[in-house]
């Protein structure tokens, strides 16, 4: 049985004091014991960004990779060792900007991994440029006259791409976050959790205060997560910012299509051929 403290890492997070990412880190440490996961059962994969530094701050196996490429790596790892629980993490730039193509394909492919986006609606690590989720008109270092682009809506994108678990939560709401993380990791197949994780340094609009004031928990409002059209409506409502589980639908995950091959994890397979097997391969060309 693991405890939250088993996941503490010797390295203190280098995030700014107050950064929303602390919330997710804390919640993960609380969630894993609830799922009976030990540090060595977990592979945390990230891209590049402030948020993507997370694998270095939690005591699990980890890969801290390239900006935008965490999902291909996480999926490749999972197929190589599907007994481990794979959690991909990163920022809005990483996942919805440079990485959005991989995201769209990962959602339809449905490898059983969990993807947590620390969405601060800004590029943190590069010191404050527009991100794909920045508000229209937001002034940043790269858009001093205002962001000219309508932001991506990660939730409708996920719903449209066949994602079987679509949720959103503010990282300051730890109990809700833990609850959702638990369900997301338990979900068989690709799960997306978009977390509002304020950047206290570069985003002076979408602050902790802002999310505390404007979010609403749609589970409390009785939202039915099996109704995809209701989910679309929640994802686009403008009165409040909806949080909670928007949609869940269990469908066969990718690994199931490789059932026989993955009866044993790939990395444990015996390698090489017998002479007969080799000869048989050659015979096909004779």
């Amino acid at each position, binding site marked *: 049985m693991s405890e939250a403290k088993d996941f503490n890492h010797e390295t203190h997070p280098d995030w700014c004091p107050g950064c929303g990412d602390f919330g997710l880190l804390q919640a993960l440490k609380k969630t894993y014991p609830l799922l009976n996961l*030990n540090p060595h059962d977990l592979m945390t994969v990230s891209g590049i960004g402030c948020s993507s530094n997370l694998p270095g701050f939690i005591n699990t196996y980890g890969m801290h*990779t390239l900006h935008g490429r965490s999902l291909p790596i996480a999926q490749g790892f999972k197929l190589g060792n599907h007994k*481990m629980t794979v959690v991909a993490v990163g920022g809005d730039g990483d996942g919805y900007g440079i990485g959005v193509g991989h995201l769209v394909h990962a959602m339809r492919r449905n490898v059983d991994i969990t993807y947590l986006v620390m969405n601060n609606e800004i590029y943190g690590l590069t010191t404050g440029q527009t991100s794909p989720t920045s508000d229209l008109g937001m002034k940043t270092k790269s858009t001093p006259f205002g962001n000219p682009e309508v932001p991506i809506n990660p939730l409708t994108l996920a719903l449209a791409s066949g994602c079987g678990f679509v949720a959103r939560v503010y990282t300051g709401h730890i109990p809700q976050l833990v609850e959702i993380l638990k369900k997301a990791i338990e979900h068989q197949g690709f799960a997306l959790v978009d977390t509002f994780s304020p950047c206290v340094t570069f985003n002076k609009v979408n602050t902790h205060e802002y999310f505390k004031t404007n979010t609403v928990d749609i589970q409390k409002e009785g939202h039915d997560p099996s109704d995809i059209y209701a989910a679309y409506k929640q994802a686009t409502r403008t009165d409040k910012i909806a949080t909670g589980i928007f949609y869940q639908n269990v469908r066969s995950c990718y690994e199931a299509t490789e059932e026989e091959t993955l009866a044993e994890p790939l990395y444990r397979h015996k390698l090489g051929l017998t002479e007969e097997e080799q000869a048989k391969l050659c015979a096909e*060309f004779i």
Partner: protein
Amino acid sequence: MSQKKESIVVRIAGAAGDGIASAADVFGRICARQGLHVTAYNSYQSAIRGGHVWYQLNIGSQKTLSHGEAPDVAILLNRTSPAVHIPQIKKGGVVLYNSSIIPDDLSSLRKDLTYYGLPFRELVKDPGVIAVMANTMLIGSLVQLLNLNPQVGLDFLSEEFTRKGDKVIQLNQLVFNTGVDWIKKNGKSLELQLNGDGIKRMLLNGNHAFGMGLLAHGLKFYAAYPMSPATGILHYLAQKAKSHKMVIKQTEDELAAINFVIGAAHAGVRAACATSGGGFSLMVEAVGLAGMMEEPIVVINVQRGGPSTGIPTKQEQGDLNLLLGASHGEFPRIILAPKDITDAFHTAGRALNLAEKYQTPVLILSDLYLSESFRTTEPFKVTLPIERGKVQTEAGSDYKRFLITEDGVSPRLIPGAPNGMYVSASDEHDEKGIVISDVLAGLPASLEIRNKIQAKRMKKLEVARTEDMQLPTVSGPEKADLTLLGWGSTYDAIEEACQILNANGHKVNHLHFTDLFPMPEGVHELLKNCKEIIGVENNFTSQMCRLIRAETSYHVQRTINRYDGEPFTGEDIANRIKKEMTHV
């Protein structure tokens, strides 16, 4: 000449969609099964139907070293091909065609050829017959023309169509025999000394060999995005996925493909991907990631005519510079360029071993010619045992993923072991993997860590250079007047050129690179001892000669470059050398 020819060049030509490749396959297999040697090259274009496509097969009693230049015999399948191909046929050659499709009087084009027009529609009236079967008839006529054993053809057809049932088999055999009989009746077999040695060889291409080589040496994960001429590897492996329990994954693009491979490799799986230059260009960033995170991955780049989309169905050795420079910053990489199909099989295994030995990307350079031309080849036997290098599944008390060691290689823990938790990062890190770029960079202690860990990684290059990289092979007369220098897929063509030149009284030998980078010590020595060197490369700028100069200062001043998209043949090289020689 009184001696009968021991080899013959056959061309089958038509448009894309005419079934040329499968006709060539049938014919090639019939030859191979009689113990003849075959080298077959498909000249096609980036269009699915139409255009001008031809397959050229060089058949011989001895090993044929290229697909040959001008054909002795041509099978023409459509009305536009005579104008293109008849001018290219060797003097006194033979043309076989379906006169129901080509009703024209071809003899007006050239008088010195023999024309056999078989009227398919009249000869075969069976209602089950379909147009493409005319090819089978023409193959039958070809078999008879070359005095090969028709029974081998009939047997092959019956195997080939087993799954389609007896009716189909019989019909195909009937059509085949129609061709055989027609020549018997209306034509005359050529006087040849085409004697198979009875050994049944495989007829396969380099992509098959790469695929089988990976599989035979423990590949378990492969990811790719389709790109000619590399896709054959994906097709081969995809078919073997279930029977050999591999995960073979087509991804959304090449960025994904290589990163999937890195993920799988990190899990402890032997993993590889292949692409062509354009796809490799997209993989460049991740190659550096693998270098930094010390992941054992194998990437095959099957070169084609560039730059950019270029001439995608044509030959070039144009990507060596790309592989040498791939990714920003500095890290160890190994580059291998197998010289033929057999070498492709073994190089695939060797690359998987080296990747795990050095925990760094191993890049294989193939090209359209090696990957897509078919050769008769002795069945492969695995000679290289699978060696996985410093790998462990359990962690000691103070495990350090990036431990500084003498050879630069650190023990690699497969994730999942209790107490071994570590992070592999693309950011610079210390021996434990803890990132030093975040809050420590620039401090005196980190400067030292950085220096050590960068030197550790680069050390692997030096160890590989001395322990694993092979010197170029030298073949032919020892004290030659001229040395032809090549690399990768041009091996056989250069060998053929040497044979031709030496038969002509020259004294030429052949120096050939397969292990390109890191370059082993001793190359300069080898080159210095040559009297005169000509670099032979299928590119514009002599990239290999440039690499040699960068490594050894040796300047190969005279070069032969072919960059029109066609592969070299021995004859072609010999002709160019002869021209060059007049300038010596």
